[in-house]
């Protein structure tokens, strides 16, 4: 079942920068989709349009059943430094008006899901970069959203931490089957995670082609060293190069 369709969306900012031009994309409910493209190609803008943080200059975003609850993970952890991990994760529930004891119980549970049980009372400054990102993901998932939008969430992390977070993210996705839209500029990351990759052109961004990644789930960390993965990366790289050459 389709969740939403982005139809011929263009976005021109007030300063004249044309971020997107006639971008079209359909997203299925429950799928894991990566949006792959070079830096500055409007990937983030596309994500922000879907989230409703920006409005399109032209074109439309059509929701099959209205915009569902959604979670958003930024490139930076974007935590409030004055409150604990628990306080940060509980924020969406607090803003929804949930009572303190209930929201703290749910936030603690969400922290447990991202492997941070025991860190409820830690302040962001006491956590490592990877742990902060986990808090950020827990915050996005605490409302049990239908759609999780992620804007290069692991780009600032080291390779080892990134791999751990990738496998953990897939596990979370398989458990609850939210729709995941993951923006990245890494072929390897997008192949590892997704069922489908939408390749975007340099600015002004358009969706150039869509690549299916047929590898089965669950994909454990060992998937990243398999021959299947290497072959998929090779074909995806080739498709990306083709698309860029044609653009």
């Amino acid at each position: 079942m389709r969740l939403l369709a982005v139809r011929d969306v263009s976005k021109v900012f007030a300063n004249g920068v044309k971020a997107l031009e006639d971008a079209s994309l359909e997203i299925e409910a429950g799928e894991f989709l990566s949006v792959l493209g070079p830096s500055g190609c409007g990937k983030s803008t596309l994500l922000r349009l879907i989230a409703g943080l920006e409005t399109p200059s032209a074109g439309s975003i059509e929701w099959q059943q209205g915009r569902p609850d959604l979670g958003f993970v930024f490139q930076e952890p974007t935590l409030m430094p004055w409150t604990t991990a628990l306080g940060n994760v509980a924020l969406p529930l607090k803003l929804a008006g949930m009572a303190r004891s209930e929201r703290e119980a749910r936030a603690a549970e969400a922290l447990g899901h991202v492997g941070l049980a025991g860190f409820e009372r830690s302040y962001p400054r006491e956590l490592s970069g990877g742990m902060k990102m986990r808090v950020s993901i827990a915050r996005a998932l605490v409302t049990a959203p239908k759609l999780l939008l992620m804007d290069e969430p692991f780009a600032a992390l080291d390779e080892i931490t990134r791999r751990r977070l990738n496998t953990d993210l897939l596990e979370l996705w398989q458990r609850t089957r939210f729709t995941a839209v993951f923006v990245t500029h890494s072929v390897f990351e997008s192949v590892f995670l997704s069922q489908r990759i939408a390749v975007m052109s340099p600015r002004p961004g358009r969706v150039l082609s869509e690549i299916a990644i047929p590898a089965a789930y669950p994909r454990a960390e060992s998937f990243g060293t398999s021959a299947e993965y290497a072959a998929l990366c090779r074909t995806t790289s080739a498709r990306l190069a083709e698309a860029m050459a044609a653009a």
Partner: protein
Amino acid sequence: MSARFVAPILMGLAMLGLWEAIVRSAAIPPYILPGPILVAKTLVTDWSTLWPALVVTMQITLEALLAAVVVGVLLAVLFSLSRWVELSLFPYAIILQVTPIVAIAPLIIAWVDDVHVSLLICAWLVAFFPILSNTVLGLRSVDRNLLDLFGLYGAGRWRTLVDLRLPAALPYFLGGLRISGGLALIGAVVAEFVAGSGGRESGLAWRILESGYQLKIPRMFAALVLISLAGIAIYLLLSLLSHLLLRRWHESAMAGE
């Protein structure tokens, strides 16, 4: 004890010793320059006049600081909620700030019957601007992504103010508060000078003036010492407050770790 404490204390003692030695060896009369030992003695013997004066000055200072916090923060919040209010009022706040308090104090003292209130207004005028401008800066220095996040979850202006803008502005506000604490004391002292006799309530500034007229220079020095000590105490207290409020999360409070 680290060199951080020992070095300035030794330096201070050396300077006091030098001062005492010069006064004694050159036989400088106390009405020109009293030695530190005489000043200390005067502080004790004249305590019954100096203490009530200190209380008066401190009372004005603290009341002015409190008023500066209330008005400064309220105005800053108002500015952050409405661009129009900010555009129309901020220039006048700056004018108030740049006009020397000595120049307007006589007017205020002439207009306001109650001396205490007029002194309070003068001290408040000097003290409120750093709180206002720092808090405005802090309320604006909010992470854009966090603002988006609050928007995403449907937080209104009020919730965003209480849960995001105010906590984000806290370190800036506390920085302004530390500056304003010292300024409130300066404002109170300057206003007392301009007002001259404080009537039934005479602050430290009046004691300094009076001692000057009566050539009681040691008492003048003793009053001066009290003003300095009061200023240092205010600064230390506000620094402590700042440390206690920020130590869990803000970089500025973690230098020692």
